[in-house]
């Protein structure tokens, strides 16, 4: 059941709907926060802070259709507050989303890294554009610039990436490249 439907149930007095809605939002928040924030612990703190606000203001929402957008804005604001705090602590400007090498946080699984590297090599033999796109991203190019360099439309780029992701995921699971 989507968030809007759960909220409508919640509004009609269904407490289980409230619990389910909060659980769904929490799972999603963790994903989003971990993509935006390099440090796992910091990400978790931001999620907790955002959930507190969501739960506290849930009854004030009028439009059920906007529950997801409303919840997202709370998380985003918490994330922005987090980066402002980090900037003050570190005394330097940082991008909202840090794509550079991780300087703190949990150590990634070495075994996963080894598999990932192996799969990337295998993928490169059948789909070289994946490496090119990643490399352009590392160099700081955005979607429109990458599209220009590859002479593709954004839509084409997304579909290429979708295919690459599927290929990579399959390889991570099975060790093989599926052409």
């Amino acid at each position: 059941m989507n968030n809007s439907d759960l909220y409508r149930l919640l509004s009609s007095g269904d407490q289980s709907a409230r619990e389910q809605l909060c659980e769904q939002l929490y799972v999603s928040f963790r994903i989003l926060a971990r993509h935006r924030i390099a440090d796992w612990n910091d990400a978790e703190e931001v999620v907790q802070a955002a959930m507190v606000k969501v739960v506290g203001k849930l009854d004030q929402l009028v439009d059920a259709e906007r529950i997801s957008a409303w919840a997202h804005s709370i998380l985003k604001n918490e994330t922005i507050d987090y980066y402002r705090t980090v900037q003050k602590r570190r005394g330097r400007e940082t991008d909202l989303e840090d794509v550079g090498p991780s300087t703190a946080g949990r150590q990634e699984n070495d075994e996963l890294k080894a598999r990932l590297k192996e799969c990337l090599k295998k993928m490169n033999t059948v789909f070289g554009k994946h490496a090119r796109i990643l490399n352009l991203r590392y160099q700081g190019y955005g979607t429109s610039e990458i599209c220009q360099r590859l002479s593709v439309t954004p839509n084409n780029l997304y579909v290429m990436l979708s295919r690459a992701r599927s290929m990579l995921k399959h390889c991570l699971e099975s060790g093989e490249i599926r052409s």
Partner: protein
Amino acid sequence: MSGTNDKSLCRLLYAYELGLLEGEQRDEFEIHLLDCPRCQKEASEFLPSARLLKRDAEVRGLVEGMAQETSSGKPARKYYLQTLLAIAAVVAFLVLRPWNLEFKPTQEIIAAENRLAVLYIGNPSETEEDLALGNTVAGLLTADLSESNYLQVVSSQRLYDAALRLGFEEPNRIDPSHAGALAREVGARWMLIAGIAADRRERRLVTQLFEVTSGDIQATQAVKMDSSDSVFDLVDQLSVQLKADLGLPDQALQEPDPRVADVTSHSIEAYKMYLKGIEFRQRMYFDDAVNCFLKAIAKDTAFAMAYYYLSLRLDPQMIQKAVTYSSRATKKEQLLIEARAAQVARDTVTTLAILQSITEQYPDEKDAFFQLGEYYYTGGDFGQAILYFKKCLALDPLHRPSYNGLAYSYEECGKLDSALQTLDSYEKVAPDEPNPFDSRGDILARNGRLKEAIESYARAVEKEPGFTPSQIKMYYAYLADGRYDLAEEIWRKWESGCAEYGCANTYLAKASALMFRGRYRDGLAWLDKAIAADSVASISKKSSSLDVLYSAKTQLLLAMDSSAIAEADVTIKHLLTMRPDDKVTYRITLVRALMQAGRKDNALQTVEQIRKDVEADNLSMFNYWMAKGYFELADGNVALAAVAFDSAASFRPRRLAFLQRFLQGQALVMAGEAGKAIEILAAQENSFTDSRLRDCFTNSRIYYYLARAYEASGRADAAIARYERFLSIWEDADSDLPELVDARARLTRMKARP
């Protein structure tokens, strides 16, 4: 923002995970993720890997190294052959999975080019059934995808021609290692290769979409094939997904997309038979092709394109059936059907317009270019004919009919060298065929090189002993060249074998030889024999038409004496009875007969009636001018006759206007306009066109009238040479013929002059 439940946002997941989304787009996706269990699950599972890809230094270093290697110019390995050979392995893997439609889309398209070649790659061990099925799927995919306004799909004919040009032994079964070369040859940006992989349990259709220049595989699909009946559904599904794989604009996915069965056939067996017919046609086995198309319509009585091809080779009227069912054909095929229908209806303007439209919309359609070439050739616009024959040859350098048409077109433009060079090329692509030599003979004969022409005809007959066109031309060419014994040799061979097919044509040939030499009475006897033979064998397609024989007989009778008029009257009435709907052709002969009988008023009425009829039916004025010319000639108004015959000649291309120019010259001689007569007749003297060679009644008489023109101009030597030639041909002619008597007298007088 679009609705966050929009499933199309799911495709942005990896872009989001790599940090490629920004601003509102990123917000939109994140809101979507809050409501999408699938994306939540995927993102959650992939999160550690995504973080490594975004942030890990080692991973980043590896990726940077790979990216630099690829962009340094080292070619990506081409995987055509390797991948295709691995199809079995791929399919084996897939067979282990539960049945599903595997969809791995990706696309890279340069906006301007969306040209796709669809190939079926068989393997030597497959069954005939699988080969036929595979070709069927390729044909259906081609037909289905061709309906898109955003794709240009290479036709199977184009692929076949290209394969021949590249020297592939089996143009309809492409070796995997040749697929790339073939795709490049036809200028395809994309190549879709289909293959059938089978094991004991099931068969799967595996397709792979390649970008031709890079060799990158863009998409792979594998579909279980449970029965032939699902082939049409399978193709419909595949074509939708292919359009997505190719990254066509959203409009391409929204354009009307008819079911492939609705634009081909609902019977898979009919379609297979149709494809077989197409293959035979490509190889020029036309009888076998016709049989296949007949079988196709036996299985599907509404198969429009089968009727179309039958109208080309079997019965033109079958195009009406094609028109009736044309809604069940692709857009291109509908145009082809329209063009053919207009052609059968003799609506030249409409035919040309549609053919030109076809060439604009479907620039691979060589038949349309060729037909335009033929139309312009027939219509006398030889410059345009050359243009279109060349365009056809650009698409198919092995297209023999285009070489033929191009050579004749050059000749008509007076470019003899170009014509002969074209025939050299024709001979190279068809070294074992008689027609290049036959055409060479025609072109040489038209340019006065009669002996060389005979040699070319002889080579044509060597290539194919039963090649009748060259045999016949040799016969008449020998007559014109004065080698009567060799002509007789050919005639004897015909006579010895004519009993099987009917002897009317053989007897007509004998009559022609006699007429050529002024032996009208003997010629008349043989014409009577031919008429009798034709009456017996009138149902045989090999026999001459009775009306041609009667027309020849009438002509002879009118050239003899007044006692023959009554008999001429009988033959004319016979002609008119046989052709009650003909308003003009045999009425011209009637005009001549009426004038010879002294019935001038009736003759004039007939001339005027012909004029009214041609104007009312919007027919060519050619017949009116011929009737008018004969009337004025017989009435002694020779100057007017010359003008009328000149007008008639203007309606015909040079190669078909011998009789009209002869009559014009004859009238000019009678009118005392010697200079003009020489100009007209001399241009015909050394041009041995087919129409001249076969017009044995007129052929030899040109020397007499040319001699008279030279004589009147004071050019004695030229006159004497022509009189002598004429009298040599008419050595044994009927002694009372006026032209013979006059020629002898004139020659005697001229020789007697100091």
